[in-house]
């Protein structure tokens, strides 16, 4: 019973944290953008502009809600809802910290430690494309449709290479559960991170994660310079807000997954010595903080890349996905398999 209460509490906290991190990502994105361009960024709402996300949210809600007359109204509303739901669903299988003892039972800091965690993530991420596709199609606008078509081709293309690079990780771990993948990276000093075993796989996964999140240099679906606004051209008010917000939630979740798969999740050097000194709960909190530090770094990295690399052309995007990343990931998978067979 206490475990159930604990899990429900965890779900609620995760929900709030996801939204909070996403909200403040919009703020920090503007700040990072400004700083990289030698500007100051938003600094009027509250000290250092801390209240900017709240101001933006109020603005979004107060805007006029427009549903085009020629659109398919049900699908038009369903689009942003699906995008938001799928974005928030992924966080269920991410292990946020080591297990804690409740009622004499070891409970991991994870909503659901399902044994096919990584497949669940891949499945939910591919569902996300429906939100964009439905929204773009229901708008009955050629720009929106083109944006949606671009988004779906891009996501489908990059999912392949992403899946292949994950297979290499599954082979080294021998499990599909993300919890096992993270504990498997403990190593000798808490530094047995997969990045050292799978540097190529990491690079492929990272590039694909950028493409899956529709972030620059892969932000073709919403390339405002050529497609007006991409798939959300016809959207306004909080429906547009949901699309934009889901992008930041996705960014947070993919940072968490990159950390889990390649950067040892909540593991940090000499964690065994630290856990010997500290109690169980403070140690768990410390682990969660380490995990969040890694996530925040990757969120920053997403923004850092956005203001460094220009957008790809569509043919370049397809070339990279199919002719470079896919063969490379297959090669990586084969090499990993060969080494595992030779070692056994």
């Amino acid at each position, binding site marked *: 019973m206490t475990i159930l209460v604990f899990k429900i509490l965890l779900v609620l906290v995760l929900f709030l944290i996801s939204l909070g991190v996403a909200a403040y990502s919009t703020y920090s994105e503007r700040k990072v953008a400004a700083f*990289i*361009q*030698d500007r*100051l960024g938003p600094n009027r709402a509250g000290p250092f502009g801390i209240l900017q996300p709240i101001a933006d949210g109020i603005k979004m809600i107060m805007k006029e809600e427009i549903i085009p007359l020629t659109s398919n109204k049900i699908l038009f509303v369903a689009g942003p809802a699906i995008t938001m739901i799928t974005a928030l669903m992924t966080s269920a299988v991410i292990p946020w910290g080591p297990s804690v003892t409740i009622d004499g039972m070891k409970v991991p800091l994870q909503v659901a430690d399902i044994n096919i965690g990584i497949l669940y993530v891949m499945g939910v991420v591919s569902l996300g494309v429906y939100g964009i596709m439905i929204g773009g199609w229901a708008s009955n606008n050629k720009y929106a449709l083109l944006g949606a078509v671009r988004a779906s081709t891009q996501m489908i293309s990059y999912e392949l290479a992403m899946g292949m690079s994950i297979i290499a990780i599954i082979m080294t771990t021998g499990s599909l559960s993300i919890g096992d993948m993270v504990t498997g990276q403990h190593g000798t000093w808490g530094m047995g991170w997969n990045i050292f075993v799978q540097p190529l796989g990491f690079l492929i996964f990272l590039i694909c994660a950028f493409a899956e999140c529709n972030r620059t240099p892969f932000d073709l679906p919403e390339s405002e310079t050529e497609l007006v606004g991409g798939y959300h051209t016809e959207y306004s008010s909080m429906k547009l807000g949901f699309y934009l917000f889901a992008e930041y939630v996705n960014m947070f979740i993919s940072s968490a997954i990159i950390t889990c798969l390649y950067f040892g999740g909540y593991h940090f050097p000499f964690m065994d010595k630290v856990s010997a000194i500290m109690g169980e709960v403070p140690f768990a909190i410390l682990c969660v903080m380490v995990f969040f530090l890694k996530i925040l770094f990757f969120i920053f990295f997403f923004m*850092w890349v956005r203001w460094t690399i220009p957008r790809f052309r569509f043919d370049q995007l397809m070339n990279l996905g199919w002719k470079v990343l896919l063969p490379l990931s297959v090669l990586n998978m084969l090499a990993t398999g060969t080494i595992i067979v030779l070692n056994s």
Partner: protein
Amino acid sequence: MQPLSSRSKIVSNKTMSWSERLYIPAILAGLKVTLHHLFKKKVTVSYPEQTRPHSKFYRGRHVLKRDDQGRENCTACGLCAIACPAEAITMVAEERQKGEETLYREEKYAAEYNINMLRCIFCGLCEEACPKDAIYLTDTISTSGYNRDTFLYTKDMLLEGALPETRIDIQARRKGQREGAM
């Protein structure tokens, strides 16, 4: 053929090497550049709190001067309006009545004096044209507004106060002009 300038370059069509086609070193170099900018000094001037330093004879908002007894200098001769290339200045002249000697320096004065700040180009020709030392451009930055009416500056907005402490000092500008002339 002889090149027209020494700056012409021969176009290079060389293909990229394998390491260049990886793009990763180039991307890392780009990331380094942006990271460097992250810690650079910001160029923004947070305007209402900070102002950009400007020269002593910056040409900003106009002022209509009074003489040392507090009387208006302007005689509504209209030379400033004629000199104005943007035709921003309009005025209505009025004859000074008996008993108004403490208000206006000479027999004629401007009952209305309007400057349309949307037309004004802050060239300072009005000030050069004025024979009576009546109009000057100050170093106060002309403010913006939400509608066109707020840009029509009337005489009561332009005229400086009669009391010594409400006078607007334009000595720096006068001196600056003299230095500039030298």
